[in-house]
C-alpha cells in the first residue's frame, strides 16, 4: 500500500509539471493550449533519442531537453498563437490541436511508430526502506519535479523576467501600457510550459515508455487537473494533478485496502477496475463543480478581452 501511495505521489509530481505549464500559458494568453500533450511526446522522444545515443542518464540529458522544448514551445506560440492573438479563444483551440497533430506526426516520421524507452533520471533499480522497495526512478521523479517547480517559482517571483511574465499574466493591457513586450513574454511563457512538459515527458518515457500517439491522453488528464483545481490557479493545478493521479492509482487499488468487503461481494471488484475509476474521476469532477463551480481554488485568470 505504501508502494502505491508512493507511486501516486510520483505520478502526481509529473502531472503537476504538465498542469503548471498549462496554467501558465492559460494565464498569459487566456487561451487553452491543446498541444500541451504533444510536448510530452516530443520531450519524451527527445529524451529517449538522446539517452540511447549518448548513453547518459536523464538528469544529464535534461538540460538539452529543456532547451529544445523551449525552442519548440516558442515556435509553436509564434505559429499557432501569435497570428490569432486577437481572435476568439476557440481559434487557438483549433490551431493548437492542429499543431499537436503536426508535432505528433513529425515525431512518427522521425522516430518511427515504435514505443521508445527513455533513460532513467538517475539510475534504474530500487532502494529498500524497511520492507518497502522504493523505485529510484519514482523517487527521482518526485525530486526533479520539486526542483523544477521550485525553479519555476523562483524565476517567477525573484527575477525581473519573472516579474514581467507575471505582469503579462495578470493584465496584458496594463503590461503593454507599461512598455513591456507582451508578445515576447508570451513566447517565453510557451517555452517554459513546453520545457516543463518536456521534463514530464522525460520522466514518463522511462517508466511508461512513449509512443507518438500518447499526446491526447496526457492532454485530457492535464486539462482535467488544471480545471478541477480552478481555472488559472497554480496551487489548484498541483492539487488537481494529485486528484487525477489518485484516481489512476489509489481508486483501482481500493479492493486491496478492504479485502473483506470485496471478498463478501466479488462483483464490487468491477467498480474499481481502471476503466471504472476513470468514470469515477469524471463524476468526482462534476461533484466538485457542483459545490465549487469555480474549481477548488477559484478563478484566477483574466477574462480574454
Amino acid at each position, binding site marked *: 500500500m505504501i508502494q502505491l501511495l508512493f507511486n501516486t505521489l510520483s505520478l502526481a509530481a509529473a502531472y503537476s509539471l504538465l498542469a503548471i505549464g498549462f496554467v501558465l500559458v492559460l494565464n498569459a494568453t487566456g487561451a487553452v493550449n491543446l498541444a500541451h500533450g504533444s510536448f510530452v511526446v516530443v520531450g519524451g522522444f527527445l529524451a529517449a533519442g538522446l539517452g540511447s545515443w549518448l548513453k547518459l542518464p536523464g538528469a544529464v540529458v535534461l538540460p538539452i531537453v529543456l532547451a529544445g522544448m523551449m525552442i519548440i514551445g516558442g515556435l509553436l506560440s509564434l505559429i499557432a498563437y501569435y497570428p490569432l492573438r486577437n481572435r476568439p479563444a*476557440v481559434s487557438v483551440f483549433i490551431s493548437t490541436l492542429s499543431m499537436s497533430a*503536426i508535432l505528433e506526426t513529425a515525431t512518427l516520421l522521425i522516430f518511427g511508430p515504435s514505443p521508445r524507452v527513455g533513460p532513467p533520471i538517475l539510475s534504474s533499480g530500487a532502494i529498500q526502506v524497511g520492507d518497502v522497495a522504493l523505485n529510484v526512478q519514482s523517487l527521482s521523479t518526485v525530486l526533479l519535479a520539486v526542483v523544477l517547480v521550485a525553479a519555476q517559482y523562483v524565476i517567477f517571483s525573484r527575477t525581473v523576467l519573472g516579474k514581467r511574465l507575471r505582469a503579462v499574466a495578470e493584465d496584458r493591457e496594463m503590461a503593454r501600457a507599461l512598455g513591456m513586450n507582451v508578445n515576447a513574454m508570451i513566447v517565453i511563457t510557451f517555452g517554459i510550459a513546453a520545457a516543463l512538459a518536456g521534463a514530464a515527458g522525460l520522466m514518463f518515457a522511462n517508466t511508461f515508455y512513449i509512443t507518438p500517439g500518447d499526446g491526447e491522453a496526457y492532454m485530457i488528464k492535464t486539462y482535467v487537473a488544471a*480545471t478541477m483545481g480552478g481555472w488559472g490557479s497554480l496551487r489548484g493545478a498541483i492539487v488537481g494533478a494529485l486528484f487525477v493521479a489518485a484516481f489512476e492509482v489509489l481508486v483501482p487499488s481500493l479492493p486491496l485496502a478492504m479485502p473483506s468487503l470485496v471478498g463478501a461481494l466479488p462483483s464490487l471488484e468491477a467498480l474499481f477496475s481502471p476503466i471504472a475509476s*476513470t468514470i469515477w474521476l*469524471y463524476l468526482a469532477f462534476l461533484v466538485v463543480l457542483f459545490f465549487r463551480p469555480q474549481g477548488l481554488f477559484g478563478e484566477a485568470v483574466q477574462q480574454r478581452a
Partner: protein
Amino acid sequence: MSRSAHVRPLLGAVGLCLLASWPLIMSSPYDLRLFTLAGVFAILAIGYQFIFGNVGELSLSQGAFFGLSAYVSGILAVKAGADFPQSFAASIIVCVLLAVLVSIPVLRLSTHYFALATLGVGQVLLLVAIEWQSLTGGAIGLSGVPLPKLFGVQVARGWPLLLFVWCFVALAAMVAFQVKRGLYGLACHVVRQNAVAARSLAIDPDSIRFAMFLLSAAMAGVAGALHAHTIRIVSPEGLDFKVMIACLTMAVIGGRTHIWGAIAGALLVVHLPEWLRGFQQSYLIITSSVLIAILIVAPEGLAGLVDRLLPPQRSKSPDSDGLSPIQDRTSDGVLMPSETPILAVRELTKTFGGVHALNNVSFSLMRGSIAAVIGPNGSGKTTLVNCITGNYRADSGAILLGGGEIGALGSDEIAARGVGRTFQNLRLVDDMTVLDNVAVARFRAEAATLGKSFLIGRRDEKLSRARSHALRVLRRVGLEHAADVNCASLAHGTKRLVEIARAICLDPAVLLLDEPAAGLNETEQAELARLLEALAARGLTLLIIEHNMEFLKNLATHMVCLDYGELIASGRPSAIYQDERVIEAYVGRRQAAEATA
C-alpha cells in the same frame, strides 16, 4: 454596399450550384461516399452551431451525442431488428433525454468548466461502450447495421443514400434557418454576446441555452443515426474525442453562426485528408497546416471571410418594407408625479467581503417621478441598481415593486415585471444593428419561443412588430437615422442613447439609468434631459444614478445621496444641495484630494 448587395445573392446561387454539381462531377462511388459522409457531418455541425454558434457555449459533448445515437440506432437495428424510422426516432429521443439529464448539473457552469464537464460525458460514454460488451460488441464494435429502409424500400448505396442524407441536411438547414432568422434568433444573439444585457431585457439566457443544447443534441442524434446506417458499423471510434474535434473544426473553419459555413466546413474537413492521402503519413501535417492557414486568413471562418469581403446587406427598416408605422397616439403630457410609491427599497444591506456596499438603505419612488441617486465614487450607487434589478442578491432588506416583493427574483423576471435599466459600462451587442439591439427588448412582450419560430412563414411577424415598435422608440429618441447602423460604429454618446431606447422598448414601469450623461456634451445632455422629462410625463418612473449635478439640477424631482453605502440625505434637490453632509461628502473630499495631489 450596393456592390455586395448584388454580389451576395449571386455568390449564394453559385455556391448552391457548386454544391449540387459537386456529386455530379465527382461521381465515382468513392466520391459519392465521401459526399454522403460530408452530409452526415454537416448535420452534426449545423446542430453544433445551435449551442456553439447561437449561444456561444463551448460544448464538447456533441461528439458524445453523435456516438450515442449511432449506438442506439445500431443496437436496435442489429439486435432488435428495428426498422429505420423506429431506430431513428429512438436515437434522437435518447440523445435529447441524455441532454436533459446532463444539462441539470452542467448547464449552470461557466465556460471552461462547462467545456470539460461536457467532454467528460463523452469520455464516460466511450468507456461504457467499450466495457458493456454484451450490448455494444465491445471495442471492436457491432457490425451488420443495415442500410436505411423506408416504407419497405431499401435506400441503396451511392446516389439514393446520398440524396437521402442530403435531404436531412436540407431539413437541418431549414430548422437552423428558422431558429436564426426570427426574434428568437435575435435573442440568442444577445445571449451569446451579453447574457447580462439579455437578462435586463427579460430574456432568460438559461432557458435559451437549455433549448439550444437540446436542439444540438437532437441534431447530433440525426447525424449519428445516419452515420451508423451509412458506414454500417457502430464502434467506440464514433465516441472518440476525435469526432468532437472534427465537429468543432468544421464549425470554426466554416463559421460559427452561418449555416452554409457548417456545410462548407464539413465538406472541407471530410475531403481534405482524403485528397491528401497520397502523402502517406505526412498528409496529417499538410491537413493541419492548411487548417492553421485558414484560421489565420479567415479567423471568423470561411463565412466570416465572405462577410468581411462582402458585408451583408442590412435588413431594411420595417417601414420601408411597407409596414406602416403606427402613429404615436399618446401626446406629451405634463410632468405630474403621483403620490403612490411604485418602487420601494426597505433597509437594504449588501456586503462584499465584510465591506458594506449598502447599509440599511431605504427610500421609495413615486410613480412618474424622476429620482436621482448621487454620491461620490464607490458610495454604492451601482450596487443599489444591481440589487434592484436582481444582478446582485441583497443580504437583507426588501425591494417592492408596485407593492410586490421582487428581491428574490432573477433579473430577467424583474425586467419582465417592468424594471428596465441601462448600464454604466455599455452593454450593447456590437455586431447587431441599432434597430435590432432595440427590437430584441420586445422578446417577452411578443412571447417569442423556439416552438413558434419553427412555424415562421415568409417573415417573422413578431420580429416585424418588434422592429416597428423599436423604430418608433428610436424616432422618439431621435435616432431613426441610425437604425440600420451596426452598434460598433456608433459614438459613445449615441450608444448611451441606444441603451436608453432599448430599455424604453421594454415598456418598463420603472427605468434605472446608470450614469446616462457620462460622455455626453452639453447639447446632448440637454436633449437627454428633455427626453427623460417627456418619458416621465407619460407615467414612466425614472431613477438616475449620476455625478453630474448640472445635469440633474433641473431634471430630478427627488434626490437621495449615498456615502459609504449609507443613505445620508433624501429630499428635494434644492434641499439636498444645501445639506451639509452632502457637501462634506462631495466637496470636502474633493478638496482633500486636491490638497494631497
